[in-house]
Protein backbone atom coordinates (compact mmCIF):
# COMPACT_ATOMS: atom_id res chain seq x y z
CA UNK A 1 0.00 0.00 0.00
CA UNK A 2 1.58 3.26 -1.08
CA UNK A 3 1.78 6.47 0.92
CA UNK A 4 -0.70 8.14 -1.40
CA UNK A 5 -3.26 5.39 -0.78
CA UNK A 6 -2.82 5.71 2.96
CA UNK A 7 -3.24 9.46 2.71
CA UNK A 8 -6.36 8.96 0.64
CA UNK A 9 -7.78 6.54 3.21
CA UNK A 10 -7.01 8.99 6.00
CA UNK A 11 -8.72 11.71 3.97
CA UNK A 12 -11.83 9.59 3.39
CA UNK A 13 -12.06 8.60 7.05
CA UNK A 14 -11.47 12.18 8.18
CA UNK A 15 -14.07 13.72 5.87
CA UNK A 16 -16.58 10.95 6.44
CA UNK A 17 -16.97 10.29 10.16
CA UNK A 18 -19.66 7.73 9.36
CA UNK A 19 -17.01 5.45 7.89
CA UNK A 20 -14.94 5.81 11.04
CA UNK A 21 -18.00 4.92 13.13
CA UNK A 22 -18.55 1.89 10.91
CA UNK A 23 -14.96 0.77 11.44
CA UNK A 24 -15.32 1.06 15.21
CA UNK A 25 -18.65 -0.75 15.16
CA UNK A 26 -17.12 -3.45 13.02
CA UNK A 27 -14.25 -3.85 15.50
CA UNK A 28 -16.75 -4.23 18.36
CA UNK A 29 -18.70 -6.88 16.45
CA UNK A 30 -15.49 -8.72 15.63
CA UNK A 31 -14.54 -8.66 19.30
CA UNK A 32 -17.94 -10.07 20.24
CA UNK A 33 -17.49 -12.83 17.68
CA UNK A 34 -14.03 -13.77 18.95
CA UNK A 35 -14.58 -13.44 22.69
CA UNK A 36 -18.39 -13.64 22.93
CA UNK A 37 -18.43 -16.89 24.88
CA UNK A 38 -15.95 -15.55 27.46
CA UNK A 39 -17.58 -12.15 27.79
CA UNK A 40 -21.08 -13.56 28.31
CA UNK A 41 -22.13 -12.93 31.93
CA UNK A 42 -24.38 -16.01 32.11
CA UNK A 43 -24.55 -19.44 30.51
CA UNK A 44 -26.50 -18.98 27.25
CA UNK A 45 -27.95 -22.50 27.47
CA UNK A 46 -28.87 -22.56 31.18
CA UNK A 47 -32.67 -22.77 31.42
CA UNK A 48 -34.61 -21.65 34.49
CA UNK A 49 -38.34 -21.86 33.93
CA UNK A 50 -39.00 -20.03 37.19
CA UNK A 51 -37.34 -16.97 35.68
CA UNK A 52 -39.04 -17.21 32.26
CA UNK A 53 -39.92 -14.04 30.28
CA UNK A 54 -38.44 -11.56 32.77
CA UNK A 55 -38.03 -8.04 31.38
CA UNK A 56 -34.56 -6.45 31.09
CA UNK A 57 -32.95 -5.92 34.51
CA UNK A 58 -29.55 -5.46 36.12
CA UNK A 59 -28.99 -9.22 36.07
CA UNK A 60 -30.50 -9.98 32.67
CA UNK A 61 -29.68 -6.90 30.61
CA UNK A 62 -31.84 -8.03 27.69
CA UNK A 63 -34.32 -9.96 29.86
CA UNK A 64 -34.92 -13.71 29.72
CA UNK A 65 -36.67 -15.89 27.15
CA UNK A 66 -39.53 -18.36 27.54
CA UNK A 67 -37.16 -20.91 29.10
CA UNK A 68 -35.56 -18.38 31.44
CA UNK A 69 -32.31 -18.17 29.46
CA UNK A 70 -30.38 -14.89 29.46
CA UNK A 71 -31.10 -13.09 26.17
CA UNK A 72 -28.02 -10.87 26.45
CA UNK A 73 -25.63 -13.80 26.77
CA UNK A 74 -27.37 -15.65 23.97
CA UNK A 75 -27.27 -12.61 21.68
CA UNK A 76 -23.58 -12.05 22.40
CA UNK A 77 -22.59 -15.68 21.91
CA UNK A 78 -24.63 -15.92 18.69
CA UNK A 79 -22.40 -13.29 17.02
CA UNK A 80 -19.75 -15.86 16.17
CA UNK A 81 -22.11 -18.31 14.45
CA UNK A 82 -23.93 -15.64 12.45
CA UNK A 83 -20.70 -14.04 11.30
CA UNK A 84 -19.13 -17.42 10.57
CA UNK A 85 -22.02 -18.41 8.29
CA UNK A 86 -21.96 -15.14 6.37
CA UNK A 87 -18.18 -14.89 6.06
CA UNK A 88 -17.79 -18.52 4.94
CA UNK A 89 -20.60 -18.21 2.42
CA UNK A 90 -19.34 -14.95 0.95
CA UNK A 91 -15.73 -16.19 0.84
CA UNK A 92 -16.82 -19.31 -1.00
CA UNK A 93 -18.80 -17.41 -3.62
CA UNK A 94 -16.07 -14.77 -3.86
CA UNK A 95 -13.33 -17.28 -4.66
CA UNK A 96 -15.44 -19.42 -6.97
CA UNK A 97 -17.07 -16.39 -8.62
CA UNK A 98 -13.75 -14.64 -9.25
CA UNK A 99 -12.23 -17.76 -10.74
CA UNK A 100 -15.14 -18.65 -13.02
CA UNK A 101 -15.86 -15.04 -13.96
CA UNK A 102 -12.22 -14.23 -14.72
CA UNK A 103 -11.73 -17.38 -16.82
CA UNK A 104 -14.92 -16.98 -18.85
CA UNK A 105 -14.40 -13.24 -19.21
CA UNK A 106 -10.85 -13.75 -20.43
CA UNK A 107 -11.27 -16.70 -22.78
CA UNK A 108 -14.87 -16.18 -23.88
CA UNK A 109 -16.13 -18.83 -26.29
CA UNK A 110 -18.55 -21.66 -25.66
CA UNK A 111 -17.80 -22.02 -21.93
CA UNK A 112 -18.55 -18.33 -21.50
CA UNK A 113 -21.91 -18.69 -23.19
CA UNK A 114 -22.85 -21.82 -21.25
CA UNK A 115 -21.89 -20.24 -17.91
CA UNK A 116 -23.76 -17.11 -18.93
CA UNK A 117 -26.91 -19.14 -19.54
CA UNK A 118 -26.55 -20.99 -16.23
CA UNK A 119 -26.14 -17.70 -14.43
CA UNK A 120 -29.31 -16.45 -16.15
CA UNK A 121 -31.24 -19.49 -14.96
CA UNK A 122 -29.92 -19.16 -11.43
CA UNK A 123 -30.85 -15.50 -11.36
CA UNK A 124 -34.31 -16.29 -12.68
CA UNK A 125 -35.14 -17.64 -9.22
CA UNK A 126 -36.10 -15.37 -6.39
CA UNK A 127 -32.88 -15.96 -4.49
CA UNK A 128 -34.26 -16.48 -1.03
CA UNK A 129 -36.71 -19.08 -2.33
CA UNK A 130 -33.87 -20.81 -4.15
CA UNK A 131 -31.79 -20.92 -0.96
CA UNK A 132 -34.78 -22.32 0.89
CA UNK A 133 -35.28 -25.05 -1.66
CA UNK A 134 -31.58 -25.88 -1.64
CA UNK A 135 -31.35 -26.27 2.10
CA UNK A 136 -34.45 -28.45 1.95
CA UNK A 137 -32.86 -30.56 -0.77
CA UNK A 138 -29.34 -30.82 0.64
CA UNK A 139 -30.37 -31.38 4.22
CA UNK A 140 -31.18 -29.17 7.12
CA UNK A 141 -27.71 -28.31 8.45
CA UNK A 142 -25.62 -25.21 9.09
CA UNK A 143 -23.11 -26.29 6.43
CA UNK A 144 -25.89 -26.42 3.85
CA UNK A 145 -27.04 -22.92 4.81
CA UNK A 146 -23.51 -21.80 4.00
CA UNK A 147 -23.49 -23.62 0.66
CA UNK A 148 -26.96 -22.34 -0.27
CA UNK A 149 -26.06 -18.75 0.58
CA UNK A 150 -22.80 -19.14 -1.37
CA UNK A 151 -24.59 -20.48 -4.42
CA UNK A 152 -27.23 -17.77 -4.57
CA UNK A 153 -24.47 -15.14 -4.34
CA UNK A 154 -22.35 -16.82 -6.98
CA UNK A 155 -24.09 -15.38 -10.08
CA UNK A 156 -23.36 -11.80 -8.97
CA UNK A 157 -19.66 -12.49 -8.47
CA UNK A 158 -19.38 -14.35 -11.77
CA UNK A 159 -21.08 -11.54 -13.66
CA UNK A 160 -19.11 -8.85 -11.92
CA UNK A 161 -15.70 -10.52 -12.31
CA UNK A 162 -16.49 -11.42 -15.90
CA UNK A 163 -17.43 -7.84 -16.78
CA UNK A 164 -14.40 -6.38 -15.02
CA UNK A 165 -11.98 -8.78 -16.72
CA UNK A 166 -13.62 -8.31 -20.07
CA UNK A 167 -13.24 -4.57 -19.68
CA UNK A 168 -9.53 -4.87 -19.01
CA UNK A 169 -8.43 -7.66 -21.32
CA UNK A 170 -7.47 -5.19 -24.05
CA UNK A 171 -5.95 -2.66 -21.63
CA UNK A 172 -2.44 -1.38 -22.26
CA UNK A 173 -0.86 -3.19 -19.33
CA UNK A 174 -2.35 -6.50 -20.44
CA UNK A 175 -1.11 -6.04 -24.00
CA UNK A 176 2.35 -5.10 -22.78
CA UNK A 177 2.45 -8.19 -20.55
CA UNK A 178 1.48 -10.29 -23.55
CA UNK A 179 4.14 -8.66 -25.72
CA UNK A 180 6.64 -9.41 -22.98
CA UNK A 181 5.82 -13.08 -23.54
CA UNK A 182 3.56 -13.78 -20.57
CA UNK A 183 1.24 -16.76 -20.93
CA UNK A 184 -2.53 -16.47 -20.62
CA UNK A 185 -2.43 -18.08 -17.19
CA UNK A 186 0.23 -15.70 -16.01
CA UNK A 187 -1.61 -12.67 -17.34
CA UNK A 188 -4.76 -13.77 -15.55
CA UNK A 189 -3.11 -14.61 -12.26
CA UNK A 190 -0.53 -11.86 -12.08
CA UNK A 191 -2.14 -8.96 -13.96
CA UNK A 192 -5.90 -9.22 -14.32
CA UNK A 193 -7.00 -10.81 -11.07
CA UNK A 194 -4.93 -8.47 -8.86
CA UNK A 195 -6.35 -5.60 -10.89
CA UNK A 196 -9.98 -6.46 -10.33
CA UNK A 197 -9.40 -7.27 -6.64
CA UNK A 198 -10.22 -3.81 -5.22
CA UNK A 199 -13.63 -3.58 -6.89
CA UNK A 200 -14.37 -7.19 -6.02
CA UNK A 201 -13.51 -6.65 -2.36
CA UNK A 202 -15.86 -3.66 -2.24
CA UNK A 203 -18.53 -5.85 -3.77
CA UNK A 204 -17.83 -8.46 -1.12
CA UNK A 205 -18.21 -6.08 1.80
CA UNK A 206 -21.44 -4.69 0.35
CA UNK A 207 -22.60 -8.26 -0.09
CA UNK A 208 -21.75 -9.37 3.45
CA UNK A 209 -24.68 -7.61 5.09
CA UNK A 210 -27.02 -9.22 2.61
CA UNK A 211 -25.54 -12.65 3.30
CA UNK A 212 -26.09 -12.20 7.05
CA UNK A 213 -29.74 -11.25 6.42
CA UNK A 214 -30.19 -14.21 4.15
CA UNK A 215 -28.71 -16.75 6.56
CA UNK A 216 -30.68 -15.31 9.49
CA UNK A 217 -33.82 -15.42 7.34
CA UNK A 218 -33.27 -19.13 6.67
CA UNK A 219 -32.83 -19.95 10.35
CA UNK A 220 -35.84 -17.75 11.13
CA UNK A 221 -38.03 -20.08 9.10
CA UNK A 222 -36.48 -23.04 10.88
CA UNK A 223 -33.76 -24.17 8.51
CA UNK A 224 -30.19 -25.01 9.41
CA UNK A 225 -29.50 -23.98 12.97
CA UNK A 226 -31.31 -26.09 15.54
CA UNK A 227 -32.36 -25.02 19.00
CA UNK A 228 -31.02 -24.54 21.61
CA UNK A 229 -28.00 -23.17 19.71
CA UNK A 230 -28.01 -19.40 20.09
CA UNK A 231 -28.38 -17.77 16.67
CA UNK A 232 -30.06 -14.44 15.92
CA UNK A 233 -32.56 -15.65 13.32
CA UNK A 234 -33.83 -18.53 15.41
CA UNK A 235 -33.91 -16.36 18.53
CA UNK A 236 -36.13 -13.85 16.72
CA UNK A 237 -38.33 -16.72 15.55
CA UNK A 238 -38.68 -18.08 19.10
CA UNK A 239 -39.44 -14.63 20.46
CA UNK A 240 -41.91 -13.75 17.71
CA UNK A 241 -44.88 -15.37 19.39
CA UNK A 242 -44.22 -13.39 22.59
CA UNK A 243 -44.27 -9.98 20.91
CA UNK A 244 -48.07 -9.74 20.74
CA UNK A 245 -48.22 -10.46 24.49
CA UNK A 246 -45.76 -7.64 25.18
CA UNK A 247 -42.61 -9.69 25.85
CA UNK A 248 -40.81 -7.75 23.19
CA UNK A 249 -37.26 -8.22 24.44
CA UNK A 250 -37.00 -11.89 23.51
CA UNK A 251 -37.26 -11.18 19.77
CA UNK A 252 -36.22 -7.56 19.45
CA UNK A 253 -32.75 -7.67 21.05
CA UNK A 254 -31.38 -10.39 18.77
CA UNK A 255 -33.18 -8.58 15.92
CA UNK A 256 -31.40 -5.38 16.88
CA UNK A 257 -28.05 -7.19 16.93
CA UNK A 258 -28.80 -8.36 13.39
CA UNK A 259 -29.72 -4.85 12.24
CA UNK A 260 -26.65 -3.24 13.82
CA UNK A 261 -24.30 -5.83 12.31
CA UNK A 262 -25.75 -5.52 8.82
CA UNK A 263 -25.78 -1.74 9.17
CA UNK A 264 -22.09 -1.75 10.09
CA UNK A 265 -21.20 -3.92 7.08
CA UNK A 266 -23.22 -1.73 4.72
CA UNK A 267 -21.62 1.48 5.98
CA UNK A 268 -18.20 -0.16 5.80
CA UNK A 269 -18.89 -1.24 2.23
CA UNK A 270 -19.94 2.30 1.28
CA UNK A 271 -16.79 3.66 2.90
CA UNK A 272 -14.57 1.14 1.12
CA UNK A 273 -16.21 2.02 -2.17
CA UNK A 274 -15.42 5.68 -1.58
CA UNK A 275 -11.79 4.72 -1.00
CA UNK A 276 -11.49 2.44 -4.02
CA UNK A 277 -13.69 4.27 -6.48
CA UNK A 278 -15.00 7.68 -5.41
CA UNK A 279 -16.97 8.18 -8.64
CA UNK A 280 -19.43 5.39 -7.96
CA UNK A 281 -20.88 7.09 -4.93
CA UNK A 282 -24.63 7.55 -5.16
Amino acid at each position, binding site marked *: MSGATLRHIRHVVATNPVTLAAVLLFAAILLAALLGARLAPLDPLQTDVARALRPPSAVNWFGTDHLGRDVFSRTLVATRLDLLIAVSAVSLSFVAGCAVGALTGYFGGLADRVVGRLVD*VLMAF*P*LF*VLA*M*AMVAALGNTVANIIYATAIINLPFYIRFARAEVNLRRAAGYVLSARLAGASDGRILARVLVPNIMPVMVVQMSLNMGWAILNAA*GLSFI*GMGVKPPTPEWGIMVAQGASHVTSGHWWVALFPGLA*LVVTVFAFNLLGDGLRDIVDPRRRT
Partner: protein
Amino acid sequence: MGRVSLRFVLGRVLAALPVLAGVVVLTFVLMRLLPADPAAFYATGPAMGPAEVEALRRQLGLDRTVAEQLLIYLRDLGTGNLGRSMVTGQPVTEDLALRLPASVELTIAGFLLALLVALPLGILAATRPDSAIDHLTRVIATTGVSMPTFVTGLVLIFVFYFLLGWAPDPTSRYDLFLPQSPRLTGFLTLDTLVDGNWEQFGAVAARLVLPAATMALFAIAPLARMTRASMLAALQGDFVRTARALGLSPAKVLLTYALRNALIPVVTMMGMVLSYMLGANVLVEKVFAWPGIGSYALDALVASDYAPVQGFVLVVAAIFVVLNLVVDLVYAAVDPRVGLG
Protein backbone atom coordinates in the same frame (compact mmCIF):
# COMPACT_ATOMS: atom_id res chain seq x y z
CA MET B 1 -45.66 5.48 -27.06
CA GLY B 2 -46.75 2.35 -28.83
CA ARG B 3 -43.71 1.94 -31.00
CA VAL B 4 -42.57 -1.40 -29.63
CA SER B 5 -42.35 -3.72 -32.59
CA LEU B 6 -43.90 -7.17 -32.66
CA ARG B 7 -40.51 -8.61 -33.53
CA PHE B 8 -39.02 -7.19 -30.36
CA VAL B 9 -41.81 -8.66 -28.23
CA LEU B 10 -41.47 -12.06 -29.88
CA GLY B 11 -37.70 -11.95 -29.46
CA ARG B 12 -38.03 -11.25 -25.77
CA VAL B 13 -40.58 -14.00 -25.26
CA LEU B 14 -38.35 -16.49 -27.10
CA ALA B 15 -35.34 -15.41 -25.04
CA ALA B 16 -37.30 -16.10 -21.86
CA LEU B 17 -38.16 -19.66 -22.87
CA PRO B 18 -34.76 -21.33 -22.29
CA VAL B 19 -34.57 -19.66 -18.89
CA LEU B 20 -38.01 -21.01 -18.07
CA ALA B 21 -36.91 -24.49 -19.23
CA GLY B 22 -33.81 -24.20 -17.06
CA VAL B 23 -35.96 -23.25 -14.11
CA VAL B 24 -38.18 -26.29 -14.60
CA VAL B 25 -35.25 -28.70 -14.82
CA LEU B 26 -33.40 -27.13 -11.90
CA THR B 27 -36.52 -27.31 -9.74
CA PHE B 28 -36.93 -30.97 -10.61
CA VAL B 29 -33.31 -31.77 -9.82
CA LEU B 30 -33.48 -29.90 -6.52
CA MET B 31 -36.62 -31.64 -5.41
CA ARG B 32 -35.40 -35.12 -6.36
CA LEU B 33 -32.33 -34.53 -4.23
CA LEU B 34 -34.53 -34.29 -1.17
CA PRO B 35 -33.00 -36.80 1.25
CA ALA B 36 -36.18 -37.59 3.12
CA ASP B 37 -38.21 -40.29 1.41
CA PRO B 38 -41.68 -38.83 1.58
CA ALA B 39 -43.25 -42.24 1.33
CA ALA B 40 -41.40 -43.40 4.41
CA PHE B 41 -42.35 -40.13 6.14
CA TYR B 42 -46.03 -40.70 5.57
CA ALA B 43 -45.81 -44.36 6.31
CA THR B 44 -45.09 -43.90 9.99
CA GLY B 45 -48.64 -44.73 10.97
CA PRO B 46 -49.15 -48.06 12.79
CA ALA B 47 -51.16 -49.50 9.90
CA MET B 48 -48.32 -49.02 7.46
CA GLY B 49 -46.13 -51.97 6.70
CA PRO B 50 -43.35 -52.29 4.11
CA ALA B 51 -45.89 -53.33 1.48
CA GLU B 52 -47.94 -50.18 2.02
CA VAL B 53 -44.79 -48.04 1.82
CA GLU B 54 -43.88 -49.72 -1.42
CA ALA B 55 -47.38 -49.11 -2.76
CA LEU B 56 -47.13 -45.47 -1.81
CA ARG B 57 -43.73 -45.20 -3.49
CA ARG B 58 -45.18 -46.66 -6.67
CA GLN B 59 -48.11 -44.31 -6.46
CA LEU B 60 -45.69 -41.38 -6.17
CA GLY B 61 -43.58 -42.70 -9.04
CA LEU B 62 -40.52 -42.97 -6.84
CA ASP B 63 -39.67 -46.46 -8.07
CA ARG B 64 -38.91 -45.27 -11.63
CA THR B 65 -35.59 -44.02 -12.95
CA VAL B 66 -34.80 -40.30 -12.65
CA ALA B 67 -35.16 -39.84 -16.43
CA GLU B 68 -38.58 -41.45 -16.38
CA GLN B 69 -39.56 -39.34 -13.43
CA LEU B 70 -38.49 -36.19 -15.31
CA LEU B 71 -40.58 -37.18 -18.33
CA ILE B 72 -43.61 -37.87 -16.16
CA TYR B 73 -42.99 -34.60 -14.39
CA LEU B 74 -42.85 -32.67 -17.67
CA ARG B 75 -46.03 -34.35 -18.90
CA ASP B 76 -47.77 -33.48 -15.65
CA LEU B 77 -46.56 -29.89 -15.89
CA GLY B 78 -47.97 -29.67 -19.40
CA THR B 79 -51.39 -30.65 -18.07
CA GLY B 80 -51.13 -28.30 -15.10
CA ASN B 81 -50.70 -31.16 -12.67
CA LEU B 82 -48.26 -30.27 -9.90
CA GLY B 83 -49.01 -33.32 -7.79
CA ARG B 84 -50.96 -33.59 -4.58
CA SER B 85 -50.12 -32.10 -1.21
CA MET B 86 -49.93 -34.72 1.52
CA VAL B 87 -50.71 -32.19 4.21
CA THR B 88 -53.89 -30.74 2.73
CA GLY B 89 -54.76 -33.74 0.57
CA GLN B 90 -55.60 -31.34 -2.26
CA PRO B 91 -53.98 -31.02 -5.69
CA VAL B 92 -51.11 -28.52 -5.40
CA THR B 93 -52.42 -26.52 -8.36
CA GLU B 94 -55.70 -25.91 -6.52
CA ASP B 95 -53.96 -25.07 -3.26
CA LEU B 96 -51.68 -22.60 -4.99
CA ALA B 97 -54.51 -21.00 -6.95
CA LEU B 98 -56.43 -20.56 -3.71
CA ARG B 99 -53.51 -18.89 -1.93
CA LEU B 100 -51.76 -17.01 -4.73
CA PRO B 101 -54.09 -13.95 -4.66
CA ALA B 102 -53.25 -13.32 -1.00
CA SER B 103 -49.52 -13.25 -1.80
CA VAL B 104 -49.94 -11.13 -4.90
CA GLU B 105 -52.21 -8.68 -3.10
CA LEU B 106 -49.65 -8.29 -0.34
CA THR B 107 -46.74 -7.88 -2.74
CA ILE B 108 -48.53 -5.32 -4.89
CA ALA B 109 -49.67 -3.34 -1.86
CA GLY B 110 -46.14 -3.32 -0.48
CA PHE B 111 -44.68 -2.36 -3.83
CA LEU B 112 -47.11 0.51 -4.38
CA LEU B 113 -46.49 1.78 -0.87
CA ALA B 114 -42.73 1.67 -1.50
CA LEU B 115 -43.09 3.57 -4.78
CA LEU B 116 -45.30 6.16 -3.12
CA VAL B 117 -42.54 6.92 -0.61
CA ALA B 118 -39.40 6.21 -2.61
CA LEU B 119 -40.09 8.23 -5.77
CA PRO B 120 -40.86 11.58 -4.07
CA LEU B 121 -38.02 11.02 -1.62
CA GLY B 122 -35.52 10.26 -4.39
CA ILE B 123 -36.68 13.21 -6.49
CA LEU B 124 -36.53 15.64 -3.57
CA ALA B 125 -33.10 14.37 -2.56
CA ALA B 126 -31.83 14.81 -6.13
CA THR B 127 -33.18 18.35 -6.51
CA ARG B 128 -31.62 19.38 -3.22
CA PRO B 129 -28.29 17.52 -2.98
CA ASP B 130 -26.64 17.67 0.46
CA SER B 131 -29.77 19.13 2.05
CA ALA B 132 -31.49 17.67 5.10
CA ILE B 133 -33.88 15.66 2.91
CA ASP B 134 -30.92 14.23 0.98
CA HIS B 135 -29.26 13.04 4.19
CA LEU B 136 -32.58 11.71 5.46
CA THR B 137 -32.95 9.72 2.24
CA ARG B 138 -29.50 8.25 2.67
CA VAL B 139 -30.19 7.28 6.28
CA ILE B 140 -33.53 5.71 5.35
CA ALA B 141 -31.91 3.86 2.47
CA THR B 142 -29.05 2.43 4.53
CA THR B 143 -31.34 1.56 7.44
CA GLY B 144 -33.88 0.01 5.09
CA VAL B 145 -31.43 -2.43 3.55
CA SER B 146 -30.07 -3.30 7.00
CA MET B 147 -33.46 -4.30 8.43
CA PRO B 148 -34.42 -7.96 8.01
CA THR B 149 -38.09 -8.03 7.01
CA PHE B 150 -38.95 -10.41 9.84
CA VAL B 151 -37.52 -7.99 12.43
CA THR B 152 -39.25 -4.99 10.81
CA GLY B 153 -42.54 -6.89 10.91
CA LEU B 154 -42.17 -7.73 14.59
CA VAL B 155 -41.23 -4.16 15.49
CA LEU B 156 -44.29 -2.87 13.64
CA ILE B 157 -46.53 -5.41 15.38
CA PHE B 158 -45.08 -4.48 18.75
CA VAL B 159 -45.47 -0.74 18.24
CA PHE B 160 -48.76 -0.53 16.36
CA TYR B 161 -50.63 -3.51 17.81
CA PHE B 162 -49.29 -3.96 21.34
CA LEU B 163 -48.20 -0.45 22.35
CA LEU B 164 -50.52 1.86 20.40
CA GLY B 165 -53.37 -0.51 19.68
CA TRP B 166 -53.91 1.10 16.26
CA ALA B 167 -53.53 -2.04 14.19
CA PRO B 168 -56.00 -4.94 14.27
CA ASP B 169 -54.97 -8.46 15.29
CA PRO B 170 -51.93 -9.15 13.08
CA THR B 171 -52.72 -12.78 12.36
CA SER B 172 -55.84 -12.57 10.21
CA ARG B 173 -56.69 -11.27 6.79
CA TYR B 174 -60.24 -10.12 7.50
CA ASP B 175 -62.66 -9.53 10.37
CA LEU B 176 -64.13 -12.90 11.36
CA PHE B 177 -67.21 -11.32 12.89
CA LEU B 178 -68.21 -9.41 9.77
CA PRO B 179 -69.96 -11.01 6.79
CA GLN B 180 -67.54 -12.23 4.12
CA SER B 181 -67.81 -11.23 0.49
CA PRO B 182 -68.05 -13.90 -2.22
CA ARG B 183 -64.71 -14.82 -3.77
CA LEU B 184 -64.28 -13.30 -7.23
CA THR B 185 -60.61 -12.46 -7.63
CA GLY B 186 -59.24 -13.67 -4.31
CA PHE B 187 -57.96 -10.14 -3.68
CA LEU B 188 -59.98 -9.35 -0.59
CA THR B 189 -59.73 -5.58 -1.12
CA LEU B 190 -61.26 -5.94 -4.60
CA ASP B 191 -63.83 -8.58 -3.62
CA THR B 192 -65.18 -6.52 -0.72
CA LEU B 193 -65.27 -3.40 -2.89
CA VAL B 194 -67.19 -5.15 -5.67
CA ASP B 195 -69.56 -6.49 -3.05
CA GLY B 196 -70.01 -3.03 -1.52
CA ASN B 197 -69.06 -4.55 1.83
CA TRP B 198 -67.50 -1.37 3.22
CA GLU B 199 -67.01 -2.50 6.80
CA GLN B 200 -65.19 -5.63 5.76
CA PHE B 201 -63.20 -3.64 3.20
CA GLY B 202 -62.01 -1.36 5.98
CA ALA B 203 -61.07 -4.37 8.09
CA VAL B 204 -59.22 -6.00 5.19
CA ALA B 205 -57.36 -2.81 4.30
CA ALA B 206 -56.39 -2.23 7.93
CA ARG B 207 -54.98 -5.76 8.13
CA LEU B 208 -53.01 -5.21 4.93
CA VAL B 209 -51.22 -2.11 6.21
CA LEU B 210 -48.62 -3.64 8.54
CA PRO B 211 -47.45 -6.52 6.33
CA ALA B 212 -47.42 -4.24 3.29
CA ALA B 213 -45.43 -1.64 5.20
CA THR B 214 -42.98 -4.35 6.24
CA MET B 215 -42.46 -5.32 2.61
CA ALA B 216 -42.26 -1.67 1.58
CA LEU B 217 -39.62 -0.70 4.14
CA PHE B 218 -37.10 -2.95 2.50
CA ALA B 219 -38.06 -1.94 -1.02
CA ILE B 220 -37.90 1.81 -0.39
CA ALA B 221 -34.13 1.77 -0.02
CA PRO B 222 -33.06 0.56 -3.48
CA LEU B 223 -35.87 2.45 -5.21
CA ALA B 224 -35.13 5.77 -3.52
CA ARG B 225 -31.40 5.35 -4.06
CA MET B 226 -31.84 4.57 -7.73
CA THR B 227 -34.34 7.40 -8.25
CA ARG B 228 -32.00 9.85 -6.58
CA ALA B 229 -28.97 8.76 -8.59
CA SER B 230 -30.67 8.71 -11.97
CA MET B 231 -32.59 11.92 -11.27
CA LEU B 232 -29.33 13.59 -10.31
CA ALA B 233 -27.77 12.42 -13.56
CA ALA B 234 -30.79 13.58 -15.58
CA LEU B 235 -30.82 17.01 -13.94
CA GLN B 236 -27.20 17.45 -14.92
CA GLY B 237 -27.99 16.32 -18.45
CA ASP B 238 -27.53 18.62 -21.42
CA PHE B 239 -31.17 18.35 -22.44
CA VAL B 240 -32.33 19.64 -19.06
CA ARG B 241 -30.02 22.62 -19.47
CA THR B 242 -31.52 23.15 -22.94
CA ALA B 243 -35.03 23.03 -21.53
CA ARG B 244 -34.12 25.60 -18.89
CA ALA B 245 -32.33 27.79 -21.45
CA LEU B 246 -35.52 27.86 -23.50
CA GLY B 247 -37.56 29.10 -20.57
CA LEU B 248 -39.73 26.04 -19.93
CA SER B 249 -41.52 26.10 -16.57
CA PRO B 250 -39.74 24.41 -13.62
CA ALA B 251 -42.51 21.81 -13.36
CA LYS B 252 -42.16 20.94 -17.04
CA VAL B 253 -38.36 20.73 -16.76
CA LEU B 254 -38.53 18.56 -13.65
CA LEU B 255 -41.37 16.22 -14.59
CA THR B 256 -41.47 15.97 -18.38
CA TYR B 257 -37.79 16.37 -19.10
CA ALA B 258 -35.77 15.17 -16.11
CA LEU B 259 -38.09 12.67 -14.42
CA ARG B 260 -39.21 10.77 -17.50
CA ASN B 261 -35.60 10.19 -18.47
CA ALA B 262 -34.63 9.34 -14.91
CA LEU B 263 -37.37 6.73 -14.63
CA ILE B 264 -35.87 4.53 -17.33
CA PRO B 265 -33.22 2.93 -15.09
CA VAL B 266 -35.70 2.97 -12.20
CA VAL B 267 -37.97 0.65 -14.22
CA THR B 268 -35.22 -1.98 -14.23
CA MET B 269 -34.76 -1.54 -10.51
CA MET B 270 -38.53 -1.92 -10.00
CA GLY B 271 -38.40 -5.33 -11.64
CA MET B 272 -35.54 -6.43 -9.39
CA VAL B 273 -37.28 -5.12 -6.29
CA LEU B 274 -40.60 -6.76 -7.14
CA SER B 275 -38.91 -10.10 -7.66
CA TYR B 276 -37.01 -9.71 -4.41
CA MET B 277 -40.32 -9.03 -2.68
CA LEU B 278 -41.73 -12.26 -4.09
CA GLY B 279 -39.00 -14.08 -2.18
CA ALA B 280 -39.30 -11.93 0.94
CA ASN B 281 -42.99 -12.86 0.95
CA VAL B 282 -42.10 -16.11 2.68
CA LEU B 283 -40.71 -14.34 5.73
CA VAL B 284 -43.42 -11.69 5.93
CA GLU B 285 -46.16 -14.26 5.52
CA LYS B 286 -44.69 -16.27 8.37
CA VAL B 287 -44.51 -13.24 10.68
CA PHE B 288 -48.09 -12.17 9.94
CA ALA B 289 -49.55 -15.69 9.48
CA TRP B 290 -50.62 -14.49 6.03
CA PRO B 291 -52.39 -17.29 4.13
CA GLY B 292 -50.36 -16.95 0.93
CA ILE B 293 -48.28 -19.37 -1.09
CA GLY B 294 -45.16 -18.59 0.97
CA SER B 295 -46.56 -19.81 4.26
CA TYR B 296 -48.11 -22.76 2.40
CA ALA B 297 -44.69 -23.76 1.08
CA LEU B 298 -43.10 -23.30 4.50
CA ASP B 299 -45.64 -25.56 6.18
CA ALA B 300 -45.04 -28.14 3.48
CA LEU B 301 -41.28 -27.82 3.83
CA VAL B 302 -41.43 -28.51 7.54
CA ALA B 303 -43.56 -31.59 6.81
CA SER B 304 -41.19 -32.81 4.05
CA ASP B 305 -44.15 -32.58 1.70
CA TYR B 306 -42.24 -31.74 -1.43
CA ALA B 307 -44.88 -31.40 -4.14
CA PRO B 308 -46.16 -28.07 -2.72
CA VAL B 309 -42.60 -26.76 -2.30
CA GLN B 310 -41.79 -27.67 -5.87
CA GLY B 311 -45.02 -26.07 -7.08
CA PHE B 312 -44.29 -22.96 -5.09
CA VAL B 313 -40.73 -22.59 -6.41
CA LEU B 314 -41.99 -23.16 -9.93
CA VAL B 315 -44.82 -20.64 -9.65
CA VAL B 316 -42.58 -17.99 -8.13
CA ALA B 317 -39.87 -18.57 -10.74
CA ALA B 318 -42.46 -18.43 -13.53
CA ILE B 319 -43.88 -15.16 -12.17
CA PHE B 320 -40.32 -13.92 -11.98
CA VAL B 321 -39.58 -14.75 -15.62
CA VAL B 322 -42.84 -13.15 -16.73
CA LEU B 323 -42.07 -10.13 -14.60
CA ASN B 324 -38.69 -9.69 -16.27
CA LEU B 325 -40.40 -9.93 -19.61
CA VAL B 326 -42.85 -7.23 -18.57
CA VAL B 327 -40.00 -5.04 -17.37
CA ASP B 328 -38.27 -5.44 -20.74
CA LEU B 329 -41.45 -4.45 -22.55
CA VAL B 330 -42.16 -1.50 -20.26
CA TYR B 331 -38.56 -0.42 -20.73
CA ALA B 332 -38.98 -0.55 -24.48
CA ALA B 333 -42.24 1.38 -24.26
CA VAL B 334 -40.67 4.12 -22.15
CA ASP B 335 -37.42 4.40 -24.07
CA PRO B 336 -37.93 4.85 -27.82
CA ARG B 337 -34.29 3.88 -28.44
CA VAL B 338 -35.08 0.29 -27.41
CA GLY B 339 -37.63 -2.01 -28.91
CA LEU B 340 -37.55 -1.19 -32.58
CA GLY B 341 -35.17 -4.00 -33.55
